[in-house]
């Protein structure tokens, strides 16, 4: 029952995106432009490690672009009240939205990672694992914070401010998996982060959308 609700909500977002094509093309174009900007931002003799670090910057900012739009449809059409009134657990709204954010982010990275390998340096297994785990954390925390930002007056302006300090541990874990010789430690750290914050978000989402 709960999972059916979550599935319906996630499918709604994916269908909306399929018809309107608002967010995903913007994310794809943004991540590619960012990589080109990074090429010119890095001096010629800087190491490949610097480019890997910048890839993580690109991922976080692309995610922010998608997250800023995550609740746009709900807010503009007044769907929020309907969703909150619906006879299902409120955390299902969070989980459904987090899944659709995760799908968009994953699709953007399906383009970004090969492009990164083409432009800068090859991508290896631990790095892909790091990206997947980081995406889970970004989608979980980002969705809750996006709902918070949507309730405020500042909206899109506020989201990066509240999201980036919470994303710093994700960046540390992600960069650790992609530049060190011993990625296991960082993989476990990301798993810990994802589990901890997913539980907090799942438990507290109800308070973000209700009074």
């Amino acid at each position, binding site marked *: 029952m709960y999972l059916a609700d979550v599935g319906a909500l996630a499918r709604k977002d994916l269908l909306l995106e399929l018809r309107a094509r608002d967010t995903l093309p913007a994310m794809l174009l943004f991540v590619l432009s960012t990589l080109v900007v990074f090429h010119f931002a890095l001096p010629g003799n800087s190491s490949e490690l610097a480019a890997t670090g910048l890839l993580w910057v690109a991922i976080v900012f692309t995610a922010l672009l998608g997250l800023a739009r995550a609740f746009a449809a709900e807010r503009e059409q007044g769907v929020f009240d309907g969703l909150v009134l619906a006879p299902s657990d409120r955390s299902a709204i969070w989980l459904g939205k987090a899944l659709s954010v995760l799908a968009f982010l994953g699709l953007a990275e399906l383009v970004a990672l090969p492009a990164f390998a083409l432009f800068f340096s090859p991508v290896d297994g631990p790095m892909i694992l790091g990206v997947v785990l980081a995406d889970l954390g970004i989608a979980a925390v980002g969705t809750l914070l996006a709902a918070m930002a949507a309730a405020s*007056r500042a909206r899109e302006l506020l989201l990066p401010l509240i999201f980036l300090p919470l994303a710093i541990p994700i960046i540390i874990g992600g*960069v650790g998996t992609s530049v060190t010789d011993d990625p296991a430690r960082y993989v476990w750290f990301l798993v810990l982060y994802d589990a901890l914050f997913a539980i907090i978000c799942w438990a507290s989402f109800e308070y973000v959308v209700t009074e």
Partner: protein
Amino acid sequence: MSTWLRNNRLVALAALAFTLVTVAVALVFFYAPLDADGLNQKIFYFHVGIALTAYACFGWGGWKALRVLWKRDDNADLESYVAIHQGVIFGALTLVTGSIWARYRWGHWWEWHEDQLVLFLVLFLFYAAYFMLRFSVPPGPRRANLSAVYALFGVALVPVSILAIRLSERFIHPVAFDRHGPNMSGSQFFTFCVSWAAMLALAATLYHVELAGKRIDVRLRELREALR
């Protein structure tokens, strides 16, 4: 005496804070022995005390946030906000004192080696955004909820960030960096405890002063509404 104390709790607390701060300053400069670091090490008594006090404020703010969500306690929202406000002030003081210490120890105003300083920078950014969030939502139960959820995120972020920053040392500074000085002697530890207590008393006083002011503000607004 006991009725006077009950009626003038804030005055008594302020007097305690003043006495403790005076005693702490006297102990730090005239009692605690100098060690290998010289005079520079004196700031440590304040720096560490202030940092621990900032944690206490954030923790107290988190506890009050939990009360908002769990018990629907109407006063807790304001208390949580004031506690976090004091935490941010003490956090900024931690950054300043830590920066002065780094300047005299290593010759730079900022030192990424120093985990505690980096952590406080992250926390400072996080809690500064708390104010942005709080002031862009109209007052009411919704704002209380959003602030409380965000404050609880902060409580989770502290241990996660400590772990993350320690892990980041491995790829940012491959060389192990030993920042531990000699262990504290008995008299140094006593001085440290007194200055920590002084900072806690100071924070508690400021917390109650600000809370009283904010409550008067709220009451005044209610009266104005009633008169209209």
